[in-house]
């Protein structure tokens, strides 16, 4: 319990006043000279127990009433369960989820979850801790600790503002752990402000265990999770999946693939028609899109543009709803670059099917090129133009130039698929290495037992049809050692060996390890070419996204590379185009970087929210219990509709307590109902 006016609690000894008055009253009571004391004593003896108890109860209630008055004037605060009371900690670390989904707002007030949480938290810290604690903010977008002079500055900090990024809560926790251990913060309260989106919390990730171990070793760290898990009700969202410029018969148009979706509870969703506005280089066109069920797809929606407009940018918009961050999607367009790939292999039975697949035009509007280089000529790779490298050769040593070039290629967002060489070697790429070749029994090839079909290279088609991965027969495979995310596994006959794995780099980019080869004696990948074709072209398209002069990226602190200041914002999510330079990669919009030479076009980038922000699933208490297992933590759920203060004054409770005490005291003091004495005055002989 804490108080806004704790000094007034010095008046608590006043609660003894009823006892003092009682003692004085006892001394000043009327004296009655009494003869029949033998009756009095007998009556007292018979009534002693209740009489004493009643007297003590009366005194206790009077003391309680006085104490309640003192507490009322001391302005008590509720919030003990939140750890807001019981003394201020040395440090308060606010871990702020700045993900796009935190901008969900109540339309009536226009207040977002993030803003409401910050206001609430600021008021609570102000009331409960005052300026006794050091306040540090770490936000999910920058992961940089910011020490605040005063908690009042919290809602106005740029680092606490809206962003269109995703939040990586484990990274946020790691940043807090690093801060605590580095700065020896003493008793620390860590407030996590989040909407508990699963995509942000990544509860299945391997980092939580290390985080739990790290925090468990610290003393005096408490976690308070201030959560706004409420999903938007029938919130609409839109995302553009592809924009292609096409020229036909003297006119030009943009072909737009987009997905319109809505979230919210319930199955019986009414059919609606959503006006989708498409703004290209300032020209607005509106498309009425009927939405039945949860989503609707716009396939190759043609948007006419000027014939001379070879490149440009635009956005699609839908009407405002409680979740504004998914109402706009920015895009850029330009002549698409050729989809160049390089195969590093000297085994023709391997590279020939690969080359055939990579040269086949999956998209007739684009040009494809694939070169094959033996491992010794890998230095000839034109890295700036290559969208995908397929490496079927020993992994280069970690200190070699080619290894560094491969690493840079992956970190730049381009594609890399590693296939096992006949002699695997000891070298590793990002800590992952090939082990040894394994073989299935003769004439008993191993089938794929499991593969991830919701995302990744083997995901189902947009029409929802699964790739025939289960038909692939594998006769030889090479083991993979290191921390990877499996995308496909072989059956029990191969002891569930990994067929395809994703190695995610810290920057978020990924390299893929395919543990078998397309050759006839190794697997049926080449013969059942659908899977190989889809896998290669998806990796190629992924890698090509970072090529060319019109790039489509998700907002993140490294979305603009190392020099965000070199970018100029052409269009922003809120339309004002005036973000601070370090905020540029965090906000949705369109940005341009001028070319090095005047005759070259600059690079356009459209930044948008990450796709995970469109998934409204959130964590529940059970999952949080598991994530914080062994740690001192509390969950405090709030909603925008029913916003309650974290620390509220509770003087009314004490006032009620006082009233109740006085009432009971009055009841106990009520004189007994007068009785008619029925005594025979006259005795035996009247």
């Amino acid at each position, binding site marked *: 319990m804490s108080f806004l006016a704790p000094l007034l609690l010095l008046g608590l000894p006043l609660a003894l006043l009823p006892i003092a008055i009682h003692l004085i009253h006892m001394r000043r*009571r*009327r004296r*009655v000279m009494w003869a029949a004391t033998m009756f009095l004593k007998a009556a007292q003896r018979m009534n002693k127990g209740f009489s004493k108890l009643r*007297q003590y109860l009366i005194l206790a209630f009077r003391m309680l009433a006085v104490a309640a008055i003192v507490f009322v004037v001391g302005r008590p605060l509720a919030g003990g369960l939140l750890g807001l009371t019981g003394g201020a900690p040395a440090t308060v670390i606010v871990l702020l989820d700045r993900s796009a989904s935190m901008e969900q707002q109540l339309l009536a007030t226009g207040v977002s979850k993030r803003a409401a949480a910050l206001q609430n938290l600021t008021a609570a810290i102000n009331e409960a801790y005052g300026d006794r604690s050091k306040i540090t903010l770490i936000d999910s977008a920058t992961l940089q600790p910011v020490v605040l002079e005063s908690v009042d500055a919290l809602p106005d900090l740029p680092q606490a503002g809206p962003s269109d990024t995703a939040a990586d809560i484990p990274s946020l926790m790691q940043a807090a752990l690093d801060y605590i251990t580095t700065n020896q913060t003493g008793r620390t309260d860590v407030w996590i402000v989040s909407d508990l989106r699963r995509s942000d919390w990544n509860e299945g990730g391997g980092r939580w265990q290390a985080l739990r171990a790290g925090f468990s070793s610290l003393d005096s760290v408490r976690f308070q999770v201030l959560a706004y898990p409420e999903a938007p009700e029938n919130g609409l969202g839109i995302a553009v999946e592809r924009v292609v410029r096409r020229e036909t018969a003297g006119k030009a148009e943009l072909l737009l693939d987009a997905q319109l979706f809505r979230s919210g509870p319930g199955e019986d969703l009414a059919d609606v028609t959503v006006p989708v506005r498409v703004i290209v280089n300032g020209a607005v066109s509106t498309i009425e899109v009927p939405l039945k069920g949860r989503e609707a797809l716009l396939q190759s929606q043609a948007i006419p543009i000027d014939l001379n407009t070879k490149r440009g940018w635009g956005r699609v918009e839908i009407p405002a709803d409680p979740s504004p961050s998914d109402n706009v999607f920015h895009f850029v367009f330009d002549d698409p670059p050729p989809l160049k790939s390089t195969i590093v292999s000297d085994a023709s039975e391997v590279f020939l099917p690969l080359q055939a697949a990579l040269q086949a035009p999956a998209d007739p509007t684009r040009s494809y090129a694939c070169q094959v280089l033996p491992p010794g000529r890998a230095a000839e790779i034109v890295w700036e133009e290559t969208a995908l490298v397929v490496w079927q050769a020993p992994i280069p040593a970690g200190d070699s130039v080619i290894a560094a070039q491969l690493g840079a290629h992956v970190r730049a967002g381009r594609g890399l698929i590693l296939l096992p060489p006949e002699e695997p070697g000891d070298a590793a790429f990002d800590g992952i290495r090939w082990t040894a070749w394994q073989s299935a029994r003769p004439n008993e090839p191993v089938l794929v037992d499991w593969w991830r079909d919701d995302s990744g290279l083997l995901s189902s088609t947009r029409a929802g049809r699964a790739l025939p991965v289960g038909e692939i027969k594998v006769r030889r495979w090479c083991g993979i050692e290191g921390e990877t995310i499996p995308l496909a596994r072989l059956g029990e006959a191969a002891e569930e060996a990994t067929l395809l794995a994703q190695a995610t780099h810290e920057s978020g980019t990924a390299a893929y390890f395919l543990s078998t080869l397309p050759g006839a004696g190794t697997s049926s990948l080449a013969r059942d070419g659908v899977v190989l074709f889809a896998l290669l072209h998806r990796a190629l398209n992924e890698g090509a996204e970072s090529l060319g002069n019109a790039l489509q990226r998700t907002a993140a602190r490294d979305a603009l590379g190392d020099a965000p200041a070199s970018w100029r914002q052409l269009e922003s999510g809120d339309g004002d185009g005036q973000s601070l330079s370090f905020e540029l990669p965090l906000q949705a919009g369109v940005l341009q970087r001028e070319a090095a030479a005047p005759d070259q076009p600059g690079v356009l980038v459209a930044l948008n929210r990450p796709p995970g922000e469109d998934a409204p699933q959130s964590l529940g208490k059970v999952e949080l219990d598991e994530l914080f297992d062994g740690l001192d933590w509390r969950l405090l759920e709030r909603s925008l509709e029913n916003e309650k203060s974290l620390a509220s004054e509770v003087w009314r409770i004490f006032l009620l307590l006082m009233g109740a005490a006085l009432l009971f005291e009055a009841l106990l003091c009520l004189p007994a109902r007068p009785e008619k004495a*029925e005594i*025979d005055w006259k005795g035996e002989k009247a």
Partner: protein
Amino acid sequence: MSADHSFLDNRVLSRLLGLPLNARQPMMGSVSGRHRSPVRGSSVEFAQYRKYVPGDDTRRLDWRTWGRSDRYYIKEFEADTNLRLALIVDASGSMGYGEAGNTRLDYGRKLAGTLAYLAAQQGDAAGLWGVGKDHRQKIPAKRGATHLRLILDQLSLIEARGETTVLESLHEAAEQVSQRALVLVVSDFFVEPAELKHALEHLKFRRHDVALFHLLDPAELKFDFDRPARFVDMEDGETMMVDPALIARRYREVVKTYLADIDEIIRTTGADYHRITLETPYDDVLAKFLLARLQSKGRR
């Protein structure tokens, strides 16, 4: 110093003089009087014949009976004697209860003084025991105007103070009052009923005619207080903090039980009991007392 005999009211005395103070049983007086005696005497009232035994006074032989039956019979007559009145007045502190000039002791003084006067007027002997813990006046029963004055003087000087010794005084009277007497006790009897019973049985064993004047104040019975007060015991000065609202019901229960016990004691001991509230005029009390005794004059 001339004692104050204002507790004697001439009007009351003249009203009551016509009513004799009788004993309910034969008395053993020292001289001839108006009260029956358990022994045969020389009055004119025939009692019985009995056979002559050697040693009898031959003057009391009934010759006419000898002439008719040729047997010797002695003719006996009733003996009349005087009454010995032992007045025991409780002088404990509790007897001082009441308004000044109208206390329980004042009331008792009027009762005792008037009865002493009436006894003296009909030639009976009267004595006085004024009893308190640290004071005791004991005047043996005698006849005569001078003795009456002495008793009245003592009555006027008695003060209510200290703890009660009425029980000890009753036992003492049972032992010390010689021969049968009328023992008349004026008290509030704030004692244990069982002990009172024991004392009364002691007096009865000694064949005394016992009369009790139980003086109670209505306030003591009703206990009609509304606010907590500090009650001070008038006998030992002990203080008690009492909330009447809490204990009034219990108090009345205790009083009721006490009075019921007293009634039971009176039934078993046969004492002449008079429960008197102080608001009752004392001459009415005495008139009733004397009239009742007139109807039950002592048998031999």
